[in-house]
């Protein structure tokens, strides 16, 4: 069991280690100002992010990101369920939502600054605005794709609408919702950075941008690496949660239990 896990980790690590080694070798010989060797990035990373900037920049960033993400998931699932259930509503709101979805969040920074000011509000708003769509779309599709027989069953047993929603429609749509939520998580991290490009005075994105403007290239890459690690960590947590919540789905689709010949 443990051996299998170790082998798994080794396998997963092989590719990144290879890639990193290749990069380092290239960076050392090329001597490009914008692509410093790993040791330099590593040293900067250790100096800046272990752990001097954690309370001043990392935590505020993550806090805003989580707030925006949570709101995006809540709004996306709620609105997506509504739209998935009501064709009328989805027809009425579709053009407006599609329009809003197509608006590039950076273009909306002016509006968010106007409405929420230069504080955390505008940044959280921006994150919500970008991250809500994958959740919303997937929820709509998931809700509409619920097995008709299962729905008929619940209706025929007069399971009230709210219980049909919470006990049947949402669980059935959950695989789709989580697929959307996972994409949304990545987008939330992207927008966490974007939101810190304007009107910020702390945060990881802010630090990266400042480094970039100051041509402090190792620091810029160190921040980028931190963002990668941050995303990796968030995603690992997400996958763990998903595994617990969706164990039935994994099993039904034959990815969890018992030898199935590939």
């Amino acid at each position, binding site marked *: 069991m443990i051996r299998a896990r170790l082998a798994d980790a080794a396998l997963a690590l092989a590719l990144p280690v290879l890639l990193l080694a290749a990069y380092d070798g290239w960076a050392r010989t090329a001597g490009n100002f914008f692509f410093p060797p790993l040791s330099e990035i590593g040293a900067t990373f250790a100096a800046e992010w272990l752990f001097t900037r954690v309370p001043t920049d990392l935590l505020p960033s993550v806090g805003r990101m989580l707030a925006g993400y949570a709101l995006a998931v809540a709004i996306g699932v709620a609105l997506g369920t509504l739209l998935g259930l009501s064709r009328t509503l989805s027809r009425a709101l579709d053009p407006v939502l599609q329009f809003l979805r197509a608006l590039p969040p950076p273009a909306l920074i*002016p509006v968010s600054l106007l409405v929420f000011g*230069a504080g955390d509000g505008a940044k959280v708003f921006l994150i919500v605005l970008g991250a809500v769509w994958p959740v919303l779309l997937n929820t709509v599709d998931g809700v509409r794709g619920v097995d008709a027989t299962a729905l008929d069953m619940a209706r025929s047993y007069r399971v009230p609408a709210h219980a049909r929603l919470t006990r049947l429609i949402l669980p059935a749509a959950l695989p789709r919702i989580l697929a959307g939520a996972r994409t949304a998580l990545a987008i939330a991290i992207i927008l966490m950075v974007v939101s810190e490009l*304007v009107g910020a005075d702390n945060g990881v994105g802010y630090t990266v941008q400042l480094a970039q*403007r100051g041509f402090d290239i190792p620091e810029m890459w160190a921040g980028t690496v931190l963002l990668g690690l941050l995303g990796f960590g968030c995603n690992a947590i997400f996958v763990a949660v998903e595994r617990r919540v969706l164990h039935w789905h994994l099993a039904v689709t034959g990815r969890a239990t018992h030898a199935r010949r590939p």
Partner: protein
Amino acid sequence: PEQGADGLTKLRIAETAGAPLNFLTYGDEQGFFAQNGIDLEITSSSGGATVIPQLVSGDLDAAGSNVVSGLIAIQQGLPIQMVAAGTSTSEDPAQDFSALMVKPDSPAQSIADLAGQRIAVNSLRNINDIVLGNQLQQAGLTYDAVQFVEIPFPEMAPAVERGDVAAAMLIEPFITVAEDHGLRIIGRPYTDLRPGLQIGTYLMNRELVASRPELVQGFQRAVQATADAIGADPAAFRAALPRISETDPGLAERVRINLWRGTTDRASLELVMGLMVDYGLLEAPVDLDAVVVG
């Protein structure tokens, strides 16, 4: 840069959107660059930090930047040089293209009254820090007596009106717009530091400067000619503004116009550089002789 069929040398240049871009576009339109053998290909940019890497990679031949970004890049070891002056502030404080502004009902009369409050700047750790820091020092405060917040120019006036920030460091044409909304000017940090302070600069790759001196000189002459033309007939420049930019014609008649000069003002650079070192934007001064061309 290659010679085109028309005998002109193509020069790819990026300049910061707004007044600097208008200046360059006007000069191109008036034919000053063509007269000096240059066919300008202008793109707009959001400032020095994004275009300097392109200078280094050779995707651009020249780039407009503010002097602070330029100096930082040079100090970090990037192979670029300053070939001409970009925008400068006016000699007359009343005509300064930039201003520190507050709400109509704000009790503040100068930056000295803003200690402990938030001031909006368009870009942190940059030229604003320098000029505002200087003002703070003159008022007997320290550089960190106020908190700088980054907000884009167009959003500054609304932010001041809402009270998100106590004051904002605006530039034209937003000053004129803000004045229409009743915002009040309480300081001219640029002219305060030095009347006619040079803010912008044109950068080129060191290799290009060394290999194509005639191209650099042609560029310098064209910039000078443009500066002279605007100095001689600002009205014509104003009239051109709605044509070469999105500026509203009514606004174009009233905006304050920067000072332009062709050659680099060493005194401004030294002043700015000194403050940059004081405020930690620069680790050590750079050798201006090796940086400034012409």
